């Protein structure tokens, strides 16, 4: 099975306190810790496990602009992905979800893939590129996928629905699936593994290589644009307990007694 996994590099929310820049038009990016978008990493692991059973290759692709995006591809190649491809062009900057899907579609059509995986959503994104890509290709699509079983020329996939229930579906190949976190346990990638793929060539394709109309993507083609960032209006906000540790604990115990949490 030939599997393409679409990945992205994002600021790691669990590692960062996100701050606004003074102009309010972006977040402070200087000191941010970036990593692969977490659901994308699960998608790569799932592809690797499928190929280990059924044979085939795994290609990881990202739409990005610089060396750091290439590093994310190398990280996934260190996990075991066979190929990494960077789609990069100034014309791609400012793309909305549809723009990204147009670029990916052009790349998909240069090759032949049985299965295309994405992460269910990105930190700043909207759980959209996979579903858009599928519609553009006229492939069937399933979102929030938390298990995949190969069944002849089809897949049996389960989707995560409300209350921890699972919706079981049969889906024809080729198809696009958006992968939910928790579907597997992504393997650890050490420095040694990353060094081993450090010199592997990562081909880069731009708009003209892909035959993408520059006016349909990037800022020019975007119907959806971020205007500014702002800090969310606080709800009532928590009463923050201050003081040394012993004081904080004493106050908390009193409050918990009063609220029925400690009898």
């Amino acid at each position, binding site marked *: 099975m030939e599997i393409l996994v679409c990945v992205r590099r994002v600021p790691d929310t669990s590692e960062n*306190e996100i*701050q606004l820049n003074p102009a309010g038009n972006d977040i402070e990016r200087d000191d941010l810790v970036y990593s692969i978008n977490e659901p994308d990493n699960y998608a790569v692991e799932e592809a690797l496990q499928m190929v280990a059973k059924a044979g085939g290759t795994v290609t990881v692709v990202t739409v990005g602009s610089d060396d750091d995006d290439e590093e994310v591809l190398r990280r996934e190649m260190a996990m075991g992905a066979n190929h990494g491809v960077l789609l990069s062009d100034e014309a791609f900057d400012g793309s909305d979800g549809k723009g990204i899907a147009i670029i990916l579609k052009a790349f998909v059509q240069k090759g032949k893939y049985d299965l295309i995986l994405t992460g269910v959503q990105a930190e700043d994104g909207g759980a959209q590129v996979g579903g858009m890509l599928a519609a553009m290709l006229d492939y069937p699509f399933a979102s929030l996928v938390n298990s995949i079983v190969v069944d002849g020329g089809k897949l049996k996939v389960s989707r995560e629905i*409300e209350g921890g229930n699972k919706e079981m579906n049969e889906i024809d190949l080729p198809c696009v699936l958006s992968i939910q976190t928790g579907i597997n346990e992504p393997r650890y990638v050490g420095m040694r593994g990353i060094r081993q793929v450090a010199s592997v060539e990562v081909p880069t394709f731009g708009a003209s290589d892909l035959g993408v109309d520059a006016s349909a993507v990037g800022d020019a083609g975007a119907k*959806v644009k971020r205007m500014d960032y702002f800090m*969310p209006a606080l*709800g009532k906000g928590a009463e923050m307990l201050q003081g040394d540790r012993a004081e904080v604990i004493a106050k908390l115990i009193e409050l918990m007694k009063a609220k029925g949490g400690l009898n």
Partner: protein
Amino acid sequence: MARIFAYIVHKGGIADDSAAELAAAAKKIDAAASPVAVVTGWGAELDAVCETLRGSYAEVWKIANQALVYPNAELVRKALLNVLPHDGIVLVSHAHFGIDLSPGLAIKMNSAFVSDVLGIEGAEGANLKLVRQEFGGQVSAHVRCDASAGAILNLRPGAFKPQEGAPINGVIVDKSADVGALTAGRRYLETVVAEAGDVDITKHAVLVSVGRGIQEKDNIAIAEELADALCAAVSCSRPVVDAKWLPKSRQVGSSGKTVKPKVYMACGISGSFQHLAGLKGSPFIVAINKNPKAPIFQVADVGIVADILEFLPELTSKIRETKQVSA
């Protein structure tokens, strides 16, 4: 202004809570709007939903087709493409069905798409000014959406407050004849109901809930000890289940359990909206997190900035002392 449609999800003959939220959101786009409810399905359940909805929508478009008895997003998309005008604004709840349906629908309708919208600040011409959150809710963003060729907006459940109003006497318009042939590359098989776990977190008055901040499986014991001292149960947020540190039955949130404890201790939990959606009945929320910017502090009653791995054991031993004194 383009017509506004609200796609209504339903189950067992009952419309989803989002039905009233979508109506409220339509009024934020255009105060004079009279949004049309759009419902797909089959048989008596569909009729029951349409009948309910005409109490709150002036117009209900009913799309009956046996193939739509279970809401398969690919089939629903094909039906909507044939029924809806392609320059309309379509509102959908941003839950598992909307995530499945809307991105592809937007491509096929050649409409703009914005997901997980939690605020609408009006329209300027054909441009909608919307509010979204990014980075786990740590920052918000204004987004401009060019709806001149139509737009699909997925709205966050719970973000739009339903408006009170007297019931109206809407009309049901049967659009079933416009649907056309329905086939899909994906077929629904069955729904597998979640397994009951070792501990029923929905029955506990006090929950010690752990998130990513617990850092590793061995540290779950720290939460177990605090729960033991409080006669509470240990629950968790999604990353803890993803890492297989606790079973799915312990997860609080829209894809896990809905709980209604008296006291909820959110330990190392950032507070995503999917997690908070599982908290009902206004519990007293204690948030302990080392990131002072964690969104959980916006909704908690009491907040403590601390590393839970240090804080929880100290709290546990103090509670044990307190109990010994009072015993």
